[in-house]
């Protein structure tokens, strides 16, 4: 008996249970992370796979063409039923413009047969989402199918040609007309600035005439380019495909509305894989379409990364300098302690508060003043007096500066005092010691601060909504017109994109995979940014590693 109680006592004292408890804590966290990532990846990455198109024949002889996206037990039937619970399937039938809704539930009991004919085609369109059906080449008036057999290769050629044409149209629209518009705007602003000058002499009048002439010439260019554009558009709209829907109805499909056609049922596995990679790349590199529910998210990725970089540029010098003063120069006393407490508390302030501050201080106060001083010719249109990537970055810099200060201070205090004494003993001043010995040694700690700041900034959305993020930005903040980096422009952000696509879009159901995919990309962007900083820190750690002696 005594032996057993001793065994029990040894068991409790040994802490075996504690090891299990702590380990299960780690396991639970890992499980949560893994589960979240799996959920996001399965839901997000699946949408790019060109899945089989099914043709379902119902008992009512109705035909349905679509993609199977889900199944469930019919809720009421399961309760009152005879034991066998009937299923129902959810199909994405597309053709929102024709059928009114993109999805359709079909009860298992209603199905007579399911087939997957090879000639079913999936069409990606510029509007109204995807369309499924059979495709043939239409005649000029777009009503009847042309009789020629073996039309699929003709269709593919036509779509390819249409895409080339569209690229030319986009080039005209964006680059050429964009350039002309930019120059007209510059000339117009120059005229405004001239008009605002206090003294008006013959020189000014001369200059003004010159500008008016230039605007006239540019407007003539503009008209000519628009005409060319119209011609191209007409050419693109000339050829028509004919889509035969599941209900037997044929609808014309203007080629300038078609982005891609495919016959997933006729594809080999290799072709499908290639299509998958292609779709994924389109998503990452493309521009959004249809209120962000389709197309790509490149502007949002670009905006997020650029914003984080600008934030880093702003926060690092500021935070590091503050930390150096607090740790190295300031007399350690109650005042410095108070400042430290204040800085730490700043890290706990809700981010929307920073957003409000950014809006009031940066956008209205600072931006408004800048506009009055530097851009009076553009008023009442604001240049910096409205949300923009600069103000958003500065607001986030403010939000993350406590993190940088705290981490840098830790790094500075971790530098062995021996190094300080060694440097000072050689006749170095305090400044030289900080610059040549202490800061290099504290660099890993400083970079830790950078990593934490970047992770926090990339995931923050609320303050951005007040200071410069928009649903759809007309142009990237970086382009080929001087001064190349346009800090005053509004931008898109992955975090806001998730919210917008998921909860503000007209077609929530179809946008769901987009939400998961955008989430995955946001996580990837944050991980990549962090990885870059971690690698940099490890390289420096190796260089400044203190010996074990």
């Amino acid at each position, binding site marked *: 008996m005594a032996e057993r109680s001793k065994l029990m006592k040894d068991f409790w004292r040994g802490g075996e249970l504690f090891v299990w408890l702590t380990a299960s804590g780690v396991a639970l966290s890992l499980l949560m992370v893994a589960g979240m990532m799996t959920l996001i990846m399965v839901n997000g990455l699946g949408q790019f796979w060109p899945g089989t198109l099914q043709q379902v024949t119902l008992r009512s002889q109705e035909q349905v063409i679509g993609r199977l996206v889900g199944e469930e037990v019919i809720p009421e039937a399961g309760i009152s039923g005879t034991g066998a619970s009937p299923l129902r399937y959810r199909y994405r039938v597309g053709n929102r413009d024709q059928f009114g809704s993109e999805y359709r539930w079909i009860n298992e009991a209603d199905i007579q047969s399911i087939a997957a004919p090879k000639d079913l085609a999936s069409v990606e369109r510029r509007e109204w989402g995807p369309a499924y059906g059979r495709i043939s080449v239409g005649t000029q008036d777009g009503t009847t199918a042309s009789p020629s057999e073996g039309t699929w290769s003709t269709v593919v050629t036509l779509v390819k040609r249409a895409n080339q044409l569209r690229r030319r149209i986009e080039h005209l629209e964006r680059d050429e007309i964009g350039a002309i518009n930019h120059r007209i705007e510059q000339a117009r602003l120059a005229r405004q600035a001239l008009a605002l000058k206090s003294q008006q002499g013959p020189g000014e009048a001369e200059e003004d005439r010159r500008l008016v002439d230039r605007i006239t010439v540019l407007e003539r260019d503009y008209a000519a380019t628009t005409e060319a554009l119209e011609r191209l558009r007409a050419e693109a709209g000339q050829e028509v495909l004919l889509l035969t829907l599941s209900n037997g109805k044929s609808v014309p499909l203007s080629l300038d509305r078609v982005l891609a056609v495919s016959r997933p049922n006729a594809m080999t596995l290799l072709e499908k894989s290639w299509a998958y990679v292609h779709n994924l790349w389109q998503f990452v590199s493309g521009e959004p379409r249809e209120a962000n529910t389709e197309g790509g998210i490149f502007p949002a990725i670009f905006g997020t990364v650029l914003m984080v970089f600008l934030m880093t540029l702003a926060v690092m010098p500021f935070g590091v300098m503050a930390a150096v003063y607090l740790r190295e120069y300031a007399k350690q006393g109650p005042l410095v302690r108070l400042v430290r407490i204040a800085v730490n508390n700043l890290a706990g302030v809700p981010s929307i508060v920073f957003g409000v501050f950014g809006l009031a201080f940066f956008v209205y106060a600072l931006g408004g003043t800048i506009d009055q001083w530097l851009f009076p010719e553009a008023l009442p249109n604001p240049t910096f007096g409205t949300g923009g990537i600069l103000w958003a970055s500065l607001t986030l810099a403010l939000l993350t500066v406590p993190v940088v200060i705290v981490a840098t201070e830790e790094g500075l205090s971790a530098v062995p005092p021996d*190094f300080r004494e060694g*440097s000072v003993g050689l006749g170095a001043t305090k400044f030289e010691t900080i610059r040549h*010995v202490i800061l290099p040694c504290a660099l890993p700690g400083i970079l830790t601060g950078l990593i934490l700041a970047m992770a926090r900034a990339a995931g923050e959305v609320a303050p951005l909504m007040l200071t410069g993020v928009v649903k759809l930005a007309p142009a990237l903040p970086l382009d080929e017109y001087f001064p190349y980096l346009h800090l005053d422009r509004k931008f898109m952000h992955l975090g806001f994109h998730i919210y917008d696509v998921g909860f503000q879009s007209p077609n929530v159901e179809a946008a769901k995979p987009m939400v998961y995919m955008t989430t995955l990309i946001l996580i990837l962007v944050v991980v990549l940014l962090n990885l870059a900083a971690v690698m940099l820190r490890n390289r420096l750690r190796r260089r400044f590693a203190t*010996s074990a*002696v």
Partner: protein
Amino acid sequence: MDVQPSKMVATAPMVTVRPSTGHSRLARPQTGLASSVSAKISVRDLDFYYGHRQSLFHVGLTIRSHSVTAFIGPSGCGKSTLLRCLNRMNDLVEGARHRGRVELDGLDIYDPSINVTDLRKRVGMVFQKSNPFPKSIYDNVAYGPRLHGTNDKRSLDELVQHSLQGAGLWDEVKDRLQQSALGLSGGQQQRLCIARALAVRPEVILMDEPCSALDPIATGKIEELIHTLKHTYTVAIVTHNMQQAARVSDQCGFFLMGELVEFGDTKTIFTTPRDKRTEDYITGRFG
């Protein structure tokens, strides 16, 4: 065992007038003249406080040019504090203050007109724990000269080689000057710190227990080095190893609880100490 400050103050002038005898073992090329035993550093009636705690009481002594002076005593007796007063390293400690004079070549180093970085350039220091910077061997040695305006590659190379040779490290590291100094052994690191101190061409080198973390072989090398160094520099060394003090020093001071108990020729102190406490400490009956 109360200490009479007057007794200890009386020892100081006695030492300064002592003629240079009993050093036949070591050649002294720099001091050709018989009367050249000049005072490099004089400490006069120095009191030193860390905050409210007084750690040095009326210390007075003279360090002769081109000699090795050792400070011995038990831990916390103030020997390191005195050493750090000699190049004002104690300025870095908050709440440190002093009374009395410390003279380098007859000039008070605590005078407001003294530039403290110039002083530390003239009076270099080697610390208890070897503290090479996490840079390459070359950059460690070149650190001081670069700060003081030597940026020419050729003269830097020369200076680095000369300093490493002076510290007896050149042959061991000449093929890996660009490698990290942290890859050196403990003894090599300490000699690198000496080379680093030599590179700014000081006049005095202060060593604060330079061998306390080293094995006997590395210690022997450093002691040999100290013998060589005193031909060119004036050396002051703090050690709690009495054999080491006996081996390397010309003069020796025994400290106890912030007071200089006895100061004089090393041979005299170790053979015929005048104070009972010195004798107790040296013979190991105390400490």
